[in-house]
């Protein structure tokens, strides 16, 4: 087998100093293969967005910093690069799509300039050519009337159209990896479906790998090849999408699945919520951080922190009580 495109190993990202320090990402490891879609699922505070920011070295410092681990992309450890070297990678070989397209576009520049900029910068194409390329990209994200819209500013577009612009920018330099952080959470359902469908189609066409960060298990089922489930800053289960939904092993994953209202089940069924509240990262319980909410908790769960263990070749979980080899 060829080497994965991205290897994250024991990544730890902390915020703050001293006793008040919070470990937002705690010893996280995963791989992304070329061309695949990996979903990172979790609730707010689970560390999924900080993981994405860490890969791109965009964690605001201070207060945040990566305190350990490696992020190997295409053979290079990103944690060892300086800011200039990182800039040559961001937007070029790894692109990012954010949740809120309005705050991530510059309101005072035309979108032609904003889409053309990475092409001009990274590919060293003269502006005229970069501008033509921007028009092509807008066509590809199905923006009607692309040529004349290049001269428009972000406020002249709807939320869905802005997200299309973000996707055009992300695709500009044919990145090998795109990280999309809740790309459709701010959009209406029918537009959400359009944007995700577009992302899937374009990543398939260009062969880019995609890390899709979301809290929506429905979106994961429709679009992901593989899934990492995060809780309290750690990956607690990872498997192919098919395996994860067919036999979720971690009690948290099972709890999540039972607590979502879904259209493919009888309406009369009561939802089974997970009791209690998501953990406070500053005061994680000893042992497994899910133990106060877990229905299958044992003595050991309150004492020892479980790390990812293998259930079979492709399916891993961090639970003392689940079957493992």
């Amino acid at each position, binding site marked *: 087998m060829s080497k994965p495109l991205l290897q994250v190993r024991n990544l730890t990202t902390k915020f703050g100093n001293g006793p008040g320090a919070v470990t937002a990402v705690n010893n996280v490891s995963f791989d992304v293969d070329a061309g695949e879609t990996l979903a990172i699922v979790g609730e707010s505070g689970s560390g999924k967005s900080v993981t994405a920011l860490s890969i791109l070295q965009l964690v605001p410092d201070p207060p945040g910093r990566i305190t350990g681990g490696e992020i190997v992309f295409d053979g290079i450890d990103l944690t060892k690069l300086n800011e200039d070297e990182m800039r040559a990678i961001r937007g070029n070989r790894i692109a990012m799509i954010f949740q809120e397209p309005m705050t991530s576009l510059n309101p005072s520049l035309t979108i032609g300039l904003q889409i053309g900029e990475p092409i001009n910068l990274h590919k060293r194409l003269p502006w005229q050519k970069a501008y033509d390329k921007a028009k092509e990209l807008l066509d590809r994200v199905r923006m009607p009337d692309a040529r004349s819209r290049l001269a428009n500013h972000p406020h002249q577009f709807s939320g869905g159209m802005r997200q299309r612009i973000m996707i055009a920018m992300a695709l500009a330099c044919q990145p090998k990896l795109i990280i999309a952080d809740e790309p459709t959470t701010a959009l209406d359902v*029918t537009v959400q479906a359009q944007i995700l469908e577009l992302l899937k189609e374009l990543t398939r066409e260009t062969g880019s790998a995609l890390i899709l960060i979301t809290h929506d298990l429905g979106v994961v089922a429709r679009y992901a090849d593989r899934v990492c489930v995060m809780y309290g800053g750690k990956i607690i289960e990872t498997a192919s999408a098919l395996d994860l939904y067919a036999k979720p092993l971690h009690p948290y994953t099972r709890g999540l699945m039972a607590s979502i209202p879904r259209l493919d089940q009888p309406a009369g069924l009561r939802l089974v919520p997970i009791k209690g509240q998501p953990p406070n990262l500053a005061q994680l319980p000893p042992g497994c951080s899910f133990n106060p909410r877990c229905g299958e908790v044992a003595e050991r769960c309150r004492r020892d922190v479980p790390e990812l263990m293998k259930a079979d070749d492709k399916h891993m979980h961090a639970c003392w009580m689940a079957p493992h080899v």
Partner: protein
Amino acid sequence: MSEVLTREEPRSAVKSNVILDVQDLKIHFPIYGGLFQREVAAVKAVDGVSFQLYEGETLGLVGESGCGKSTTGLAVLRMLPVTSGKIVFEGVDITNYDQKQMRPIRRRIQMVYQDPFGSLDPRMTVADIVGEPLEIHKLHGNRAERRERVMELLEMVGLRHDMIDRYPHQFSGGQRQRIGIARALAVEPRLLICDEPVSALDVSIQAQVVNLFQELQDKLGISSIFVAHDLAVVRHVSNRIAVMYLGTIVEISSRDELYANPKHPYTKALMASIPVPNPIVEAGRAHHIIKGEVPSAQRPPPGCRFHPRCPQAMPICKEKVPELRPEGKGMVACHLFS
């Protein structure tokens, strides 16, 4: 999808008397412009909405942003000026009531808001927040009695007695939403208007609050309007569901009928847009994704408002506004059925 929607769970009985009757409700927000700041146009947020709500019933209002679902909810409480139409609550026409006349009505109709962070006063304790409506409506006269009642309410929504003297910042989102619900229930309203009450919450917490709503409906027999954009959530709490698009109701039907047999192309599109959390089901599901976005409510398309996005649009749809008429077990506003 057919075999799954057959079970009917035991629910608090929906009675046959109408508690709320909304007739041809219109709410237009004027836009001023020009030299003399004259009214030049209007945003037609709600444009001819009619529905009836029975006692003990929960009606879900679903649709995308800008469809007028929240505006409809606020209008029932008379928190917005009504352009035309009628709102009849418990047999009394309250459309033209002034603020003073509305006061006793607001004891009977209460509201639960979307944002549990913005809707609670950070400087008040839970005892004050939940007890305030009792004080305003002069129920449970003295302080000790009020405190007693607040304890009772906290228990009802699943909060502990010792939380009574805490401040909102000491609670998580789900707990705050429970406080908001306790406050709404304090004055024993007959009608509850819930505006996206679970959409700000994390999935594992959402289920807790959805279940709480179901329990309260069963226990108190309260009528409610449940406004949400999430069809899957609405399905869990509603007896009947109205689907709204650009200020109008396009389809209204019993829950089971709507999900088993959606009629309006927009209802179908909305359902197809929601991914099901099962990769095998998803792989076999046709993804009919509708084009375009919701147009501006200032200049809605002529004829059927959905026609520019509708995969089944016919010439008549561009010209004639379809009326909401009975079709099967529900009502639908679409020329395909006329």
